[in-house]
């Protein structure tokens, strides 16, 4: 019986909250043309969280290349473009830091070109810039990357379509349930209001939280501008799991 009690206590503590309504995109968003044939049409099946969802991969420090957080020092020379510092904190919905969790980023170079065989944009590649990095957050949930400001680039979604400058972010958090992939934008970018990817989320405040903040605190004199981008992962729900199970049965 002791094991059963332990399991019960553990699941009571660890369930993750539902997303707040409107703050996440629907799978189907026709202005983003690629979603039309890839979004499921059947409704998602509501599944109570189990041990399978409240646990998740833990990427340890032994997997981390300490040089991977500086995208400007991965080659013999310096990359072209404006060097920037991108930093922030990874928090949960109770504003608690998410420590020692993996943050991965990837981005275009200063000319708006990715080091990828399917990127056919006519802008030049930069032999000194690959555009990917990773790091772990520290004990207070902080992360920091040195990179260059990515360029805007055209895409074929609609006539005269251009993506605003952005950096892709991928995070695990503490559970399968807390996985997040998102994009960070830059303040004042005139392309943001026209971007169907940025606009896929209904809630305006939620969208605007994807725009980083210029930050004097992390700006290094005569060296690099700082941008701050805090990320919030799902927090634990105070509601015991039994209630979810009961709702599903009712």
């Amino acid at each position: 019986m002791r094991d059963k009690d332990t399991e019960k206590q553990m699941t009571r503590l660890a369930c993750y909250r539902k997303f707040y309504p409107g703050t996440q995109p629907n799978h189907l968003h026709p202005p983003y043309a690629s979603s039309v044939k890839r979004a499921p049409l059947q409704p998602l099946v509501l599944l109570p969280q189990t041990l399978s969802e409240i646990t998740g991969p833990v990427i340890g420090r032994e997997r981390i290349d300490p040089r991977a957080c500086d995208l400007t020092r991965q080659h013999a020379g310096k990359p072209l473009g404006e060097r920037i510092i991108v930093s922030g904190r990874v928090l949960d919905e109770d504003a608690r830091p998410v420590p020692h969790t993996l943050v991965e980023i990837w981005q275009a170079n200063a000319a708006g070109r990715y080091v990828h065989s399917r990127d056919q944009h006519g802008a030049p590649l930069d032999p000194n810039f690959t555009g990917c990095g990773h790091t772990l957050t520290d004990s207070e949930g902080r992360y920091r990357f040195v990179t260059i400001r990515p360029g805007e680039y055209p895409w074929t979604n609609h006539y005269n379509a251009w993506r605003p400058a952005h950096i892709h972010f991928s995070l695990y958090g503490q559970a399968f349930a807390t996985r997040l992939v998102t994009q960070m934008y830059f303040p004042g970018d005139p392309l943001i209001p026209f971007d169907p990817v940025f606009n896929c989320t209904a809630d305006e405040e939620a969208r605007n939280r994807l725009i980083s903040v210029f930050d004097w605190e992390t700006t290094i004199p005569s060296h690099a501008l700082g941008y701050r981008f805090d990320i919030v992962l799902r927090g634990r729900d105070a509601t015991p799991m039994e209630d979810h199970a009961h709702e599903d049965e009712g």
Partner: protein
Amino acid sequence: MSPRSTTWQTVGPFFSIGLSWLYDEDVAGPAAAGERVTVEGQLLDGDGQPVPDGILEIWQANSCGKYAHPDDMQDKPLDPGFKGYGRVPTDDQGRFRFTTIKPGRVPGPPNGSGSRTRLQAPHLVISVFTRGLLRRLITRMYFPDEPSNNEDLALNLIDPARRHTLIASKMDGRANALEWNVILQGADETVFFDC
């Protein structure tokens, strides 16, 4: 007001430059205990066309039904050779492949009428990412000829006509090889979860 979760955005078409360093087809790890299986399949869109720019992420318990994670406090042994996590891409034909071990059974949530939990059937939890998906899709893969599938929590939440989309099938003439396809949209659409 407490902070709200950051909104999802698509991985876009060029994610491999950032995510490929963690690609690993061996989900269990070479030294893991348990019954080895190879899983092969195809990721298809609503026109039945292969999705060449996709990733599957797999998470699973070890052969005893224990997750390699501090929140799994079951009194079951950890397997030091077991990893339980893999990230695999699709190729130009939308095909993916991984090897692993069949996991043990893990508890489901308490059933609402008491403190007893019901065990789930052996399963993998899987995230699907592609260009065109604004956030990940969550699904599960189950094993063929597994009697406990009949009493599994998640499978019993699904329309019986769609359950087969989550159960891998044996491949003819190949021992320990399973086929499991992911169909994003349309006839025989794979079941995806909100959890």
